[in-house]
């Protein structure tokens, strides 16, 4: 299980390895990733979709497509958008159980904690928690329908 999730994580680890731990290039790259993330439609930029515990504003939306959960997100800062875009790349379009059991080892492996600092690390943890909560909610919902 989770081979797809881990394949994407491994790809990300490889991409970041090219930056050779250079802090400035890494932040630059994350900002570029953020700028490439499709903006969230206005209707989803609601207070209900705001993640608590982030220094920047982050909106996260989750929808069910068949048995897959599709995430979309936005933020007022490019770095946060870049971070959430990585999470979306790894977790969006997966089944609820896959998301729930995912071990997101890529975050440590790319040295994210050291790069973004403790405040943003807490924000990242809050984003992951929120994604897993959505997965849990949809899992319960799907189980009810079955």
């Amino acid at each position, binding site marked *: 299980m989770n081979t797809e999730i881990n394949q994407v994580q491994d790809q990300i680890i490889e991409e970041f390895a090219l930056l050779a731990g250079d802090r*400035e290039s*890494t932040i630059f790259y994350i900002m*570029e990733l953020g*700028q490439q993330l499709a903006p969230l439609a206005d209707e989803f930029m609601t207070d209900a979709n705001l993640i608590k515990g982030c220094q*920047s504003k982050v909106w996260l939306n989750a929808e069910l497509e068949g048995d897959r959960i599709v995430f979309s997100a936005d933020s007022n*800062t490019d770095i946060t958008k870049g971070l959430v875009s990585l999470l979306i790349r790894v977790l969006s379009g997966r089944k609820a159980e896959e998301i729930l059991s995912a071990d997101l080892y890529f975050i440590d492996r790319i040295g994210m904690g050291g790069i973004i600092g403790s405040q943003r690390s807490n924000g990242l943890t809050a984003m992951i928690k929120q994604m897993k909560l959505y997965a849990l909610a949809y899992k319960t919902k799907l189980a009810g329908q079955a």
Partner: protein
Amino acid sequence: MNETVTKTAYQAEEIRKQFPVLHQLVNGKPLVYFDNAATSQKPQRVIDALIHYYQTDNANIHRGAHALADRATADYEATRLELRKFVNAEESEEIIFTRGTTDGINLVASTYGRMAVHEGDEVIISAMEHHSNIVPWQLLCEERGAKLRVVPVTDEGELVYEEYRRLLSSKTKLVAVAHVSNALGTVNPIKQIIADAHAAGAKVLVDAAQSCSHLPVDVQDLDLDFLVSSSHKMYGPTGTGFLYGKRALLEAMPPYQGGGEMIKEVSFEKTTFNDIPYKFEAGTPNIGDVIAYRKAVEFINEIGREEIAEHEDGLLRYATEQMRHIKGVRIVGEASEKVSVLSFVIDGLHHFDIGMMLDARGIAVRTGHHCAQPLMHRLGLEGTVRASFSAYNTKSEIDAFLEGVERVSNLAR
């Protein structure tokens, strides 16, 4: 004018040598510390004074009958004398030690404020105040049924002076205003502000948190009623600062906190209070930091505030001029008189992101609302990036900063 006196050139490199913290790599790059408006770094002599106090003189002051207590008391009081000279107060009893600017403002609001502000009265502040010069007055006005009036600011970040004059009336009991804005660097015309307030019968508190390390302040020349500042923004330790108040006001004011040190005699029937300044210094004070604070004032005096101001002004002008050439940069705060602070935004980039990028290059700046949300709101901004310069900063540091800003500006969409 024929300048015959040649001034010795400003020795920034020599000054830097006195600050151990500056000599380090951050993220592999030499540290460029441009967050001086938040707190300045400390010269070796301040650090040494702290160590010396705890290693050799530690004792409680004003009470112990022994050698250590005598030395500690003498050193503690020496700082008061030094600060008296620093702001040219008439008497050293007019200098009260506080925890810092915030504490000083709260002290005045709780004592002078409660004594002088009544229902229907008014307190005037400005739209560029730090939260710590807003909230205590809001609380006071709420408690007393008084009204808080706010002098607006222009798009350039200057007070709308005619509005201030218009707001002044016989209802005005107090005007509380920053000497220098921490978010924009604007220098306010405090001499005129004080004269106009006095003409209306109001007292004035000046928040000098951002000015004491940059500009000369003479409370007698200004005819100032209250002045507050923080040690940690003037090369001294955190956790201390001072309030200057005119003797007659301080004597008339009720005490702030009750406890030891501030009393003359205590019985359960009646307590008589100590004389100023001790009336306002209840409990064991922050002895070690106060003692080391003197070394910070000495440091400033040694270079000279005029010299520091001139050096910083040169840095600010150079940085401002160069910043105007960088695509997308918008300088926030274009007052005709400014000190130390360069606030800016880059269109299409968030200030947090700019701060992170600069940090990656070892450049420390502040990002956000700078505890001045009403001002940010007035300027239609969520926040800015703020670089603030100090006695030990150099032109080559500005060049490193400009290079960083240029690089991050390329990411603007």
